[in-house]
């Protein structure tokens, strides 16, 4: 069975690039699972308790002044990871260490004082601002929650708020102070959300797709603001995005995530200059280039991101990977997917249907796929399965351990995958058997 490799935190590339720092957050083999909601009936009839493996063994480290990018598609677990880091979620396993203190399972009242150091801003600035609160009230709110407001006079509080509004470019600040979120443009609302995070003078801001909902012509300004604040306050950011171009521009280091795992992590310039993981390569290739002279035919991974409730065996990218090997984790459902794909071919559909029967009679469990055998001749059936396997991807065919008929079932069984763990390749860590 597959053993998940832990990223050794001593490895140079997971460490941040700068020297000693007053702020350091270490994420060590973190897991965040969510229970899948099921009905009472489902629970009565099945002992299985399915989980969404949102974040499944992730390690990295961030120091002050650093911008660390978490890049991935929807379902990669990047948002869950960002929320777990500021402890809006409690991790299932692993450790979060803030300045030497283990904060993984601190209670809400214990974590709250520490949140002054770690703030978060979200993708949708409209949803993250209370429509019934003026912008001034919203930005003042954290000062009240953290008991700072009561140590100052109301005038001092207001001038602190106006000052932070000026810093984020919300001007004229005394007018915007008494406006409601509905009166502001998207860019202004995101600035207000940044001001609200900034007023506590945090060391780290987790920014979850902060510009994704803004128009192109104003994105640059918000990003520039984030960069300016970093140089002014030596702020660290965890920048969560699906946009590789923005990540490249902004981040010192990045981690590419796929279904809860980091597949490649290291300095941005190394990864963008020469991506190593086939998934990173695919992502980079898929971005439409805004230059009509650079049109090129793309070789894209097939299919879509699979469900994180039951992630693929071995390397989670193997069913879609253009560089897949025999040892990457071929399993029963890959065979069923292959049968399904064949049914799209009008020449093969009839013969497959005759000999292999309807698709829904086939089952897949772990590394096996199979079907109940009726009146058919078992030898002939095995031969046909073997012959269609030779028409499949050679890596899949070679991964088959055995095709046999046992207990009136035809069973296709795959070899177990090779051990997968992060390896250091040219100045970054890559989790791929190619290296």
């Amino acid at each position, binding site marked *: 069975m597959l053993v998940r490799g832990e990223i050794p935190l001593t490895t140079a590339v997971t460490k941040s690039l700068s020297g000693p720092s007053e702020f350091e957050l270490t994420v060590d083999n973190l897991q965040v699972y969510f229970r899948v909601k099921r009905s009472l009936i489902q629970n009565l009839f099945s002992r299985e308790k399915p989980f969404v493996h949102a974040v499944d063994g992730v390690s990295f480290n961030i120091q002050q002044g650093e911008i660390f990018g978490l890049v991935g*598609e*929807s379902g990669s677990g990047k948002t869950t990871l960002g929320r777990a880091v500021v402890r809006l979620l409690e991790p299932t396993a692993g450790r979060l260490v803030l300045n030497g203190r283990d904060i993984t399972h601190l209670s809400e009242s214990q974590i709250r004082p520490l949140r002054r150091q770690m703030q978060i801003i979200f993708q949708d600035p409209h949803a993250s601002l209370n429509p019934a609160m003026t912008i001034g009230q919203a930005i003042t709110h954290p000062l009240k929650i953290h008991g700072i407001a009561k140590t100052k006079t109301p005038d001092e509080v207001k001038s602190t708020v106006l000052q932070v509004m000026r810093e984020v470019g919300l001007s004229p600040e005394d007018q915007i102070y008494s406006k409601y979120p509905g009166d502001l*443009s*998207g*860019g202004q609302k995101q600035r207000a959300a940044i001001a609200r995070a900034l007023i506590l003078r945090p060391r780290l801001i987790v920014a979850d797709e902060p510009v994704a909902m803004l*128009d*192109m*012509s*104003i*994105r*640059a*300004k918000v*990003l*520039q603001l984030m960069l300016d604040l970093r140089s002014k306050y030596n702020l660290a950011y965890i920048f969560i995005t*699906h*946009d*590789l*171009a*923005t990540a*490249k*521009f902004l981040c010192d280091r990045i981690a590419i995530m796929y279904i809860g795992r980091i597949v490649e992590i290291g300095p941005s310039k190394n990864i*963008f200059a020469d991506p190593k993981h086939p998934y990173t390569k*695919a*992502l*980079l*290739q*898929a*971005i*439409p*280039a*805004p*230059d*009509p*002279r*650079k*049109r090129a035919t*793309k070789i*894209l*991974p097939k299919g*879509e*991101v699979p469900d994180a409730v039951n992630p693929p065996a071995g390397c989670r990218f193997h069913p879609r990977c253009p560089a897949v090997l025999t040892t990457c984790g071929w399993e029963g459902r890959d065979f069923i997917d292959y049968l*399904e*794909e064949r*049914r*799209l071919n009008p020449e093969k*559909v009839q013969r497959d249907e005759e000999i292999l029967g*309807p*698709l*829904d009679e086939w089952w897949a469990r772990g590394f096996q796929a199979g079907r109940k055998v009726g009146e058919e001749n078992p030898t002939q059936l095995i031969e046909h399965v073997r012959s269609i396997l030779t028409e499949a991807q050679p890596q899949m065919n070679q991964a088959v351990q055995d095709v046999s008929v046992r207990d009136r079932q035809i069973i296709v069984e795959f070899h177990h995958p090779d051990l997968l763990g992060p390896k250091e390749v040219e100045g970054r860590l890559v989790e791929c058997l190619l290296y």
Partner: protein
Amino acid sequence: MINGETLGIVGETGCGKSTFGKSILGVLPPKTQVEGRILFKGRNLARLTEPEIRAIRGKEIALIFQDPMTRLNPLMRVEDHFVEEISAHKSSSRSEARKKAADALGSMGIPESRFRNYPHEFSGGMRQRIMIAMAIVLQPSLLIADEPTTSLDVITEAQILQILEDLKRTYSMSLLLITHNLGIIAEVCDRVAVFYAGKVVELGSVEDIFAHPIHPYTQGLLASVIYLDSRELRSIEGFPPDLLSPPPGCRFHPRCPYAQQVCQETVPPLVEFKPGHFAACLFGEKFL
């Protein structure tokens, strides 16, 4: 637009690009005032009655939206959507309609074992492929795609764009692609119309517009795209105007770095500065 051509409509939130797309098929809210002409194969779509336009919708001109769930009925099996669509236009038998549906779905990579599933049982990319299958099942001559990939991931987006390109070639269909993403325009379109505050400010071939934009808004928009080779961050000052009271003269003048007094007074006409390359700027020659 001509046969087999792909025209891109690009602009930011609130520039009117979606409203424009919907006006072609008359699917705007009731009592919307539509003036001017929409000539399709010689007929003015803006003057057609509801039954007349209904005969064109889906059959001659099809529309796909950003969110497939706005078009797919959650209570209807995927196959039945097709049967309904086909029998609305043709008096074909159920089995004939099924056959057509199977061909369209199969060409989009949806296996037959899934035809009887409900929309929620499919992933986002598959739903979008079902929508495309539905749009092409009657082989329309024009497909209007309004942000067809915006809610999808980059790899799925690239897959869908490849599908749209293949379809265009197979059926010599014209494609009107509405998007805010300049990268998609550059990759897929032959020509592009840049919208700003409800007006076309520039129109031309993608090669011309990306290499030599004339209108200052197009210049600013192209410069503010962050792509992998970007070395600096650029943006356009100010905000798009409120369309309840758009600025007089050129609607871009309050944000334009080159604006003069005359720009506040005169509405710039769309002028052909180079063959096939139009722009609505009073000082267009300056940027040639």
